């Protein structure tokens, strides 16, 4: 059987990169004595699959992971066992039997929600209008680093929806964007397009809020196939 887990990655542990997070889960699964299935062949490894790598330094409230189990087990038990051994900042919040379809978790991902917090002390000149005006343009051009040098691309078609709010200390930008292996928009690129003078040492905080599959409409992964 295959179980799908939704988990958070918040606090300092967000500085642990994707590959290290994969290893962290592989080890936690062993420590928690979850009967995980192993690949066949010469160097067997446990069968776990992540939905979409998360950048170093980015928090998330909606990460997903599939674990293939070698036998039938109550999913809630897996969740409890794992939460007992997982490190601070990583919490399994949901678990369910993955729909038994061929699609890999990674190929299901079509869109994502991000929240970007732009502190006023870092961007003292910023207003809601600047952000909204930028987002309202026909095209949103940004220079993107590619293998063959930089090129300018229009990221507007990759944006599904946006919302701008002003808070006391910061501006909060919510982004609903395409994500996954076919088309993927990094939220940093949106910021770069909107605030052309943004520099490396300008600090802003990004949280991934949710990942979506697509079946006639965008469906949060924890609602998909359940």
């Amino acid at each position: 059987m295959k179980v799908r887990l939704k988990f958070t990655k918040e606090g300092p542990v967000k500085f642990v990169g994707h590959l290290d997070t994969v290893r962290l889960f592989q080890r936690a699964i062993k420590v928690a004595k979850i009967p995980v299935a192993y690949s066949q062949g010469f160097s067997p490894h446990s069968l776990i699959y992540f939905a979409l790598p998360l950048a170093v330094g980015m928090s998330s409230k909606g990460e997903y992971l599939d674990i293939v189990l070698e036998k039938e087990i109550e999913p809630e038990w897996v969740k409890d066992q794992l939460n007992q051994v997982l490190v601070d900042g990583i919490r399994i919040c949901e678990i369910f039997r993955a729909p038994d379809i061929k699609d890999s978790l990674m190929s299901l991902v079509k869109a994502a929600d991000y929240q970007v917090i732009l502190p006023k002390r870092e961007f003292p000149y910023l207003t809601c209008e600047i952000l909204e005006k930028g987002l309202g343009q026909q095209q949103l051009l940004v220079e993107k680093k590619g293998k063959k040098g930089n090129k300018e691309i229009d990221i507007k078609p990759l944006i599904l929806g946006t919302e701008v709010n002003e808070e006391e200390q910061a501006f909060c930008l919510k982004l609903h964007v395409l994500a996954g292996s076919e088309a993927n928009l990094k939220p940093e690129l949106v910021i770069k397009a909107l605030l052309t003078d943004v520099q490396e040492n300008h600090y802003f905080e990004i949280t991934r809020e949710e990942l979506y599959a697509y079946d006639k409409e965008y469906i949060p992964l924890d609602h998909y196939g359940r």
Partner: protein
Amino acid sequence: MNTVNLSDSLLNRVDKPARYIGGELNSYKKTIEEETIRFAFCFPDVYEVGMSHLGMQILYHFLNRREDTFCERVFAPWVDMEKIMREEKIPLFSLESHSPLSDFDFVGFTLQYEMSYTNILNMLELGGIPLWSKDRREEHPFVIVGGPCAYNPEPLANFVDIVYIGEGEVSYDALLDKYKEWKREGGSRQDFLKHIVKIPGIYVPCFYEEIYKEDGTLSKRKKNYEEAPDTIKKVIVEKMDESFYPEKQVVPWIRAIHDRVTLEMFRGCIRGCRFCQAGMIYRPVRQKSKEVLLGYAQKLLEATGYEEISLASLSTSDYKELPAFAEELIGMCNEEYVNISLPSLRVDAFSVDLMQKVQEVRKSSLTFAPEAGTQKMRDVINKNISEEEILKGCRLAFEGGWNRVKLYFMLGLPYETVEDVQGIAALAEKVAQTYFGVEKEKRQAGLQLVVSTSCFVPKPFTPFQWAAQDSAESFMTKHNLLKHAITRRQIRYNHHDAKTSVLEAVIARGDRRVGNLLYTAYQKGCTFDSWSEHFDENKWQEAAKDSGIELAFYAQRERSYEELLPWEHIDIGVTKRFLMAENEKAKAASTTPHCLEKCSGCGANKLGKGVCHEG
């Protein structure tokens, strides 16, 4: 409690920020009370290096088993992080509670290699702790050092308050209990230091002074506190099976150099290679039983989820119950999809067979360390292996499907001649011929032979402690000689940097004056000297000039047996008489049997433990 605020914006600016966050699986979280003894275990290198170190894992869990003590880890920040810390005035902090280093009761450094010493000074400074022990006041932590390089503590003597000679499990409890008592009763720093001189293995350098002769050699060691012992005996664990060993390991966030369960099989080595410091200072050999080892293997794998286990010892092949132990361990690990790593094997039929069993597929490269190219040299260093055995081992390996072999040698060993250097190339050539001598169907295509040479560094407490080291120029001549002697395209040659090795020799056999060299080099900006991209030979040369330290005096001068050596107040069990006898035998290229064949009377038997007292 003060804590250091590591903001996200800061961590976003550094490489591998996970080095600095703490909170890994099996790390400790403790509430810090007023009376908690706070111990900072410092490794003077970056996180990935320090987290690979077995001694830290042992002592971390050993100290934390005490309810009244909280041991936390501290590593050297990488240069990018250090720059930000200095700019933003962030003190060096512990990973567990993010406390500034200056808040601890004890700041302990493990001395694994000499070229990490400038990092110790840097970490003290970043931690807001005065570098010289004489400048520390009541509010400052006690700086304590231990580990293999602590057996000659003198270069660091003026920077540290306490030196621990021997194995940590033995005397730390007594030391911490004394500390509690001192804190309760109140008293000066001096009072505490005076209280602990009677604890076995404890050396307090400030109670001694070095007096020099006009020729620069040591005249005598003066005591300025009567109660301080004349010699400090190393302390060792008596019964390995009953001794503390951690049942879990902190699992690093990012891939450490050695990222796996480490199972310590035994301490000490029966072999007695004459260049090897570890082989002398850890005597006598004390083994753990196979049952105890298997029990720890099981527990450690369960607690860490690691996919690899490594057997740690100075010479795995010499473990008494190796065949039975290996068989059971392989059984256990196959069930759990765990790989076994077997360092320090001798080249024989059993080893090749064993490696075959643990590496069913994808054969990694095989490493042999003949150490010297000719039989004469191998006899000089008492590396009891013949060319026939080496080639036979290689043949077995080639027949077993290995095609990548690494051969380790040392250059600049005492009594080495040009022929001996060329002998390295000749031996490598014979290994290559052995490969081509194996039937084509039996061997894996594409031989890759790597010959690697390090530069011999004479170390204290070895039969070669009196020897002169080669000069950097001589090392480089030998490098060139070898480079040209190795012509076959399947053989690649690489070598260690000679200049680092010269400084290593200066510090390894240094006295207290060498502390000034360290200080000056550090003031000139030297840190991370063991990282070739950071080592700055010119700065060290300038520092030598400025501090009045003649490098050749320490590295290239042959000492006489009569000379008082800076580390002679440390007693490792092995006697000076034995080391002298071994050095004389080296001159005659005569070998000494290992401990199991025959006791050679090294003196370690007076420690009353281990192999010397087994029937």
